[in-house]
């Protein structure tokens, strides 16, 4: 079986399982909405959102709900011992990683499709003035976050206190993604849109993705071998 076929099978499996229960997508989505609501009480003053609140709230909601989704996705694999079955299968290990990553990305895309317009609506943010650039920032940022997150969540399946260790490990490593996402989005929301700045952050995100996806593919095999 070649690399692409393996990736496709893993993604199809994850999508099928999720489509039947819809557990992760619903819980993650409502968690993200609850996050946005809670932030509103911190960043809305006399009925008006604080300046620059929207990008921060958006990216923190994505990071928090992403962590939750990663934890749940691998908890499911752990409970049924299916991750072990996957690792025993005579296929490329990196293909398994790419498959899981693609599944997480699909899930987070669904969450973002709802959360981004919601944040724009609730915090009076002109998020859609530059839709292409915003979509690129979201895609690159989510990929970077999920690339590191998928590897960490997969390796933590074997560890104790994995629920709390995942954010403890993941957030310090993904701080560049959060900074670049928030500042890049903020550059698009300013009164005079700062396109070069947003582009600079976008290129940093793409570089981050390239480096960390490579590193994850490279370390997946030794990290998942018991």
């Amino acid at each position, binding site marked *: 079986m070649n690399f692409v076929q393996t990736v496709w099978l893993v993604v199809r499996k994850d999508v099928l399982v999720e489509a039947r229960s819809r557990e992760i997508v619903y819980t993650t989505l409502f968690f993200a909405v609850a996050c946005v609501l809670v932030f509103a009480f911190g960043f809305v003053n006399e009925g008006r959102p604080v300046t620059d609140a929207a990008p921060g709230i958006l990216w923190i909601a994505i990071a928090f709900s992403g962590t939750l989704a990663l934890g749940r996705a691998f908890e499911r694999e752990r409970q049924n011992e299916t991750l072990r079955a996957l690792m025993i299968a005579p296929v490329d290990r990196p293909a398994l990683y790419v498959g899981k990553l693609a599944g997480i990305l699909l899930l987070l895309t669904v969450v973002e499709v709802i959360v981004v317009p919601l944040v724009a609506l609730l915090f009076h943010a002109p998020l859609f003035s530059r839709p292409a650039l915003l979509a690129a920032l979201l895609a690159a940022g989510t990929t970077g976050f999920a690339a590191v997150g998928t590897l960490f969540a997969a390796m933590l399946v074997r560890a104790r206190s994995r629920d709390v260790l995942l954010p403890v490990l993941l957030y310090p490593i993904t701080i560049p993604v959060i900074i670049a996402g928030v500042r890049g989005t903020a550059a698009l929301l300013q009164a005079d849109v700062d396109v070069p700045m947003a582009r600079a952050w976008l290129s940093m995100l793409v570089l981050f993705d390239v480096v960390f996806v490579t590193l994850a593919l490279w370390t997946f095999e*030794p990290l998942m071998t018991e």
Partner: protein
Amino acid sequence: MRRLFLPLTIVAAGMFMCAPFLIDGAPYESTMGLVQKIFYFHVPSAMTMFVSAIVCGVASAVYLFKGRPAADRLAAAAAELTSVFGIIVLVTGPLWARKAWGVWWVWDERITSTFVLWLIFNAYLLLRKYGGPGSERLAAGLAVFGMANVPFVYWSVNVWRTLHPKTTVVPTLQPGMRGPFWFCVTAFLLFYVLALSARAHLEARRAELETLYLDIEE
């Protein structure tokens, strides 16, 4: 290293005893005065912390790909020392900042990246401590990621904020300050090497003891 350990410890202790006198003898900085003296301990601890982080990252990569237990023990020792020197940096920094800038903490590039780095190595230690069996390997993966992350954190925080005195102040130090400064750097690095070897040695002994226990049980 074993034979040199005791004499070097005496040298390091002597250096730390002499350091206050040398720092006292160094000229006062024209604008900051006495507060600037914290720099003789702050910067060497920061340098030691970064050296330690690199040692941990490289040792972790060796362990992850070659599976050498000695590399893992070295990485664990280096991570603990990164955390300890990080605390020194993060305590002495605000003490100085309060006097020089009037606030305890500013979100500047160097300070923020140091804080992030310190968090990563504490996450490493938490994972080793609470991750259960086999977590050394996972922690090694984290350290490799942490090391790869440093330029990204640095660059992103750099664009985000800048305030900290540049490291370029070091070569431009007045002659009277240069001596005590490099003396302190040497003392800190020597102490670091000693602590690292002692800690790695302790870890090796612990591993030995564990195999002995397992042998008895069998």
